[in-house]
């Protein structure tokens, strides 16, 4: 794919939307890996006792579902960015409510900004994603990716 002549032309672009579901088993696995020992995050009975409809997605897990977006590296290819150059710069979540296991969550990402620093040595790509369920807002994710120019072998 050709590299864009004007990288700022990506600003405002809507990326393909998609639907994702967090499964209980995966949430329990995630909780175990991060050392989360609160049973609310592993056990549906504990979650319901705590007032959730099912096991809740812990605060950062929407990021994991957002990784399921189709062809995630296409925009990087258009910008001439190699994955090895990429660092996670910033991550933000704004929550309307807690999402739970089994919910069909709709993700609508778009490119909110692109800018460069240090004469183009650092490139920043900001992606904002609205998450809804049955048309009602659940959360908004804002991801800032930083690409450094590396001498890659």
């Amino acid at each position, binding site marked *: 794919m050709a590299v864009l002549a004007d990288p700022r032309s990506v600003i405002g672009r809507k990326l393909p939307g998609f639907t994702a579901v967090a499964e209980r088993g*995966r949430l329990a*696995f*995630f909780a*175990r*890996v*991060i*050392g*989360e020992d*609160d049973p609310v995050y592993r056990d549906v009975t504990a979650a319901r006792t*705590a*007032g*959730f*409809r099912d096991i*809740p997605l*812990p*605060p*950062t897990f929407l*990021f*994991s*579902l957002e*990784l*399921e977006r189709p062809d995630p590296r296409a925009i990087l290819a258009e910008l001439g960015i190699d*994955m*090895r*150059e*990429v*660092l*996670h*710069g*910033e*991550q*933000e*979540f*704004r*929550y309307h*409510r*807690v999402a*739970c296991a089994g919910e069909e969550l709709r993700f609508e990402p778009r490119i909110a900004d692109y800018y460069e620093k240090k004469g183009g040595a650092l490139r920043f790509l900001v992606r904002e994603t609205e998450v809804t369920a049955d048309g009602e807002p659940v959360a908004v994710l*804002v991801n800032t990716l930083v690409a450094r120019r*590396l*001498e*890659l*072998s």
Partner: protein
Amino acid sequence: MTTTSVAPGQELPELALPPVSRTTLALFAGASGDHNPIHIDLDNARSAGLDDVFAHGMLSMAYLGRLVTRWCPQARLRSFRTRFTAITPVHARPVCTGVVRDVNGGEATVDLTVALEDGTVTLRGTATVSLVQEGTV
């Protein structure tokens, strides 16, 4: 946390993590869905000019999430943001801390930090939490 006890300057109970192992990075890649080989494949890291793999930033943010939700029910969490300020090398021991910066309009703003033993700050962020009791989800 009791709502009436939240005041500026209040510190959240610290969360000290065990050393980040290569096993943790491999498992976190699978659990989180972030399969970027820079975190799990030494050959890939070396091809990018690095000496070694390094931890996912989102692993540290997940640890910070634990710090917040063991202090405050998750249903009260309104926003959570971090800036990733340094990479976390393999074997590093992250320590998560938080301090209430401000209480205003039924919301508290908490400053969050993840730091390593040598003092390197790897994440800085904030969370806002509602101090108003609400229905559950």
